């Protein structure tokens, strides 16, 4: 039977070059590439497993919160590596609120590894 019953809600932020954190509403944002084309990114299209794609809504955590947070961290790094055209974003952050087994809500910030300067 179920190991845990936890809920979470996460919000995606982009950290810009000036250090400002900009909320990516619904996990979506657009940038203009070097060639001038508009490129659209969507978190939920890139991250779909383990209920990690559901942003900004209370979602049931599969298996448990510890493993969900672990996969969120990996997902942040994975997505960061796959947006090379978005030179404006220095790193991605997830603001996660979670409640384990109906307990009080806790919060945590997760951050991707920053973009390497050579790739900017």
């Amino acid at each position, binding site marked *: 039977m179920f*190991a845990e019953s936890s809920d979470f809600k996460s919000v995606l932020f982009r950290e810009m070059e000036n250090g400002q954190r900009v909320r990516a509403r619904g996990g979506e944002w657009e940038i203009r590439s070097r060639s001038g084309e508009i490129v659209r990114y969507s978190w939920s299209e890139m991250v779909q*497993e383990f209920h990690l794609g559901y942003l900004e809504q209370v979602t049931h955590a599969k298996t448990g919160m510890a493993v969900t947070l672990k996969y969120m961290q990996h997902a942040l790094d994975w997505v960061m590596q796959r947006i090379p055209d978005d030179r404006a974003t220095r790193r991605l952050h997830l603001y996660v609120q979670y409640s384990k087994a109906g307990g009080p809500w806790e919060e945590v910030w997760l951050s991707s590894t920053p973009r390497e300067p050579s790739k900017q």
Partner: protein
Amino acid sequence: MKEIRAIVLRWVDSIGPLSGLGICRSVLGLMVVRDAWGYLQKYADRGFYLNQFNLPYADWYPAPTEALYFSILIGLIVCGMLMAIGALTKPAVYTAFVLHSYHLGLNEMWYRHNRYFLALGLLLLSLAPCDRAFSLASSRVSVAVGSLWSSTLLKIQLSLIYLASALSKTLDPDWSSGRVLFGRGVMKDWNSLAPEWLVTLLPRTQLVELITISALFQEFFLAIFLWVPLMRRVALWVGILFHGYIELRYSVITFSYLVLGVYFLFVRPTLRDRIIYLPRAGTLCRFLRQAIPSLDWLNKVELRESSGARIVVTDFDGRSYRGLFGLIILGTALPLTFFFTFPLSLVRHLTDCFDVATPKGREEIAPQPWMSRSNALALLVAVIGIYLALVWSITFEHFPYSNRHHFHFFDIPLFAVILTLVNQLQLGPKRK
């Protein structure tokens, strides 16, 4: 030391009827299909998994191309179906084990206890004589008997799962306090199912604690009492109720069915220890003559002709019963009716008013198949074809998720029909 060695050797050398193992293999085959089908749905919805966030266990683990990945899923479905009907059984089990294990290792986020249990089950099946019973090829064998050590390992594995699950939850304050089950919506079920006076009588906090204690008790109970002959049938019934509720309420993909498949290994290793005496005339008797062999997957029932006017059933303990109560006793020997008839059969422990004398010296009736072998085979192929067509169409038609989820419940009657037809195809030579 010598004694331990002797016990181990005795266990390794133990042999017995393989019908339970054959049914377990069929169920595992259907679960291979169900598991692969889920990933086929994901593929249809989201595309190739490598194009989205995934987490391989190790960098050196070989990733498949999209075509290979799709072929693996199709291969699993084919192997699962072959396992279910018992055709090319051993190659199908080996292939399913290799493909399923490889697929399990592709993505850390795809790990589930039920998928691990399935991989372990396939490994043990590949080492067991699982192709000798309950298969299209087993009709040539009179009574399939073989080594049981791998079956014992599967049973031990199930008990360890129950024990580990119950112990970890007992030690987890969130679980033992009832908060986890409260969060999973058991109170909603209770409020909708229980009579209003009971809902108002019992405080919610106490009730959820009671349900939690009951769930933990059931896991401990099943871990231990499936091994105790006197309590085995009670434990099987409790287990069916426990996993049946979880499956209907939460649908845990394959776990419930895997457990029910392993339950067949716990069945007492005796054959034809129930006798049903059927009068020659009567529509019901003619129906039973054909229906019982089809439903008697474990080869537990012997049919005999009776000169009397009423049906008499002799149970494994030698006590005989007639009429409707006799049929209830008979139902406890048939997998599809066990859950419904077992509680009713317990009445006999309260009174002996249903007991009758056992008829003597009646001739055995050869089981009559419900239909000819060729017709049964054609029907089996048709049912499997319909099932696969449904799976295929629902997978690649973009139905809402909830509709697909409800389709899972069509599996239950279809699986029962498939297993009944496989059993039907064994009738005749095997029992003579």
